[in-house]
């Protein structure tokens, strides 16, 4: 039994043309038993900045709360919105503080730069090693399935509508091959002037 697969989760974030998308499943389970089908794993950290947290459910909530606290203090002190790359370093620092007793989460970050609106995605491991990519990042118990789907379906410069279709098909088909993730999915499409949230019609098994 692995701690990272105790609750089950699926997260993916993708870069499109002047937009990013981030999607997650909605299952909260305790090993085989499904407890809730409305367990959010994506949290808003800024107007165009979102973090997805796959892994152990209690740590998902704790990290989200502690991160919100730090981001609020940052915005009060600095009097500006936090940039995605800075936020990534903030998450990395929070996780590495617990190097020898870590939070069991593998964060996935998606956002747009405040001024240039340049798309940004990043992921990291449970002790905060960051990785920035130009295409997509995945996380959760079905990360291999997600890698397979994203690698085949993604292409650069997808418009928001096409990015939505691509990320939706990636997550829906990947979680259908994982017993611990699924039971619904939610997608956020982040553009420079709006954020669209869509709940996907998925197999509820």
């Amino acid at each position, binding site marked *: 039994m692995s701690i990272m697969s105790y609750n089950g989760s699926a997260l993916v974030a993708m870069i499109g043309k002047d937009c990013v998308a981030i999607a997650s499943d909605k299952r909260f389970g305790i090993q085989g038993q499904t407890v809730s089908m409305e367990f959010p794993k994506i949290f808003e950290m800024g107007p165009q900045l979102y973090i997805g947290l796959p892994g152990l459910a209690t740590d998902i909530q704790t990290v989200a709360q502690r991160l919100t606290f730090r981001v609020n203090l940052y915005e009060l002190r600095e009097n500006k919105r936090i940039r995605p790359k800075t936020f990534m370093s903030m998450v990395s620092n929070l996780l590495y503080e617990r190097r020898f007793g870590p939070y069991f989460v593998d964060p996935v970050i998606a956002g747009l730069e405040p001024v240039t609106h340049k798309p940004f995605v990043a992921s990291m491991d449970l002790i905060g090693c960051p990785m920035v990519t130009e295409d997509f990042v995945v996380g959760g118990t079905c990360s291999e399935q997600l890698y397979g*789907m994203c690698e085949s*379906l993604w292409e650069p410069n997808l418009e928001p509508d096409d990015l939505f279709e691509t990320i939706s098909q990636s997550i829906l*088909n990947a979680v259908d*091959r994982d017993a611990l993730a699924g039971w619904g999915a939610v997608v956020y499409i982040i553009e420079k002037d709006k954020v669209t949230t869509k709940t996907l019609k998925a197999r509820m098994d």
Partner: protein
Amino acid sequence: MHEKVSRDEYYLSQPKGAHWYPYEDHGGTILAIAGEDFSLVGSDTRLSEGFSIHSRDHPHTYRLSEKTVMGSVGFHGDVLTLKKLLDSRLKIYEHEHNKAMTTSAIAAMLSTMMYGRRFFPFYTNTILAGMDENGKGCVYSFDPIGSYERELFRAGGSASSMLQPLLDNQIGFKNQGDVPHTPLTLEKALALIKDVFISAAERDIYTGDGVCINIITADGVRQERFPLRRD
């Protein structure tokens, strides 16, 4: 005589056990698709062990008869033994019954051969592909102890979890709402196999070097090869 050790060393040490393990994982990925009048089974051509590569040109598909091809990955010793045993059993059948074994018969026989080793299994992930008695393509997939099922498509091996969801989506039309279920043509299936192996080679370290696809039709078996990333 027992070796003199300190009290701490005795109480804090782990019990020592046997270090020899009968299996190794030689990597590789296989994929089979059944069409209306054809069958495809493809594999990468890399044979690896840990972080080393034994060979860049060692396909994981093996021709059993005019209309059946086996793809097998896992512990290479068991892959070769399974092929050897299957070949001889096929030959015996041909001598006794004066005809070649059908694909479904080979599948049923393979299942019993593998279950015969239930308590020291063949450490292999195998997929059989061929033409059935009605001239349609068929794919049979097995687990290491012989549980099997006929399917339309199956991926096996180290990158199977990356390939299978895409096949569900593109061939099974899963999660695609009201898209019309057009039957799969040979050209589309070949293009799909090439694409998925390229994707698998990107993300799986044990998959790469090249792809070898066996195309099984009523006219027999033909092979196509193309290169993959070698890193």
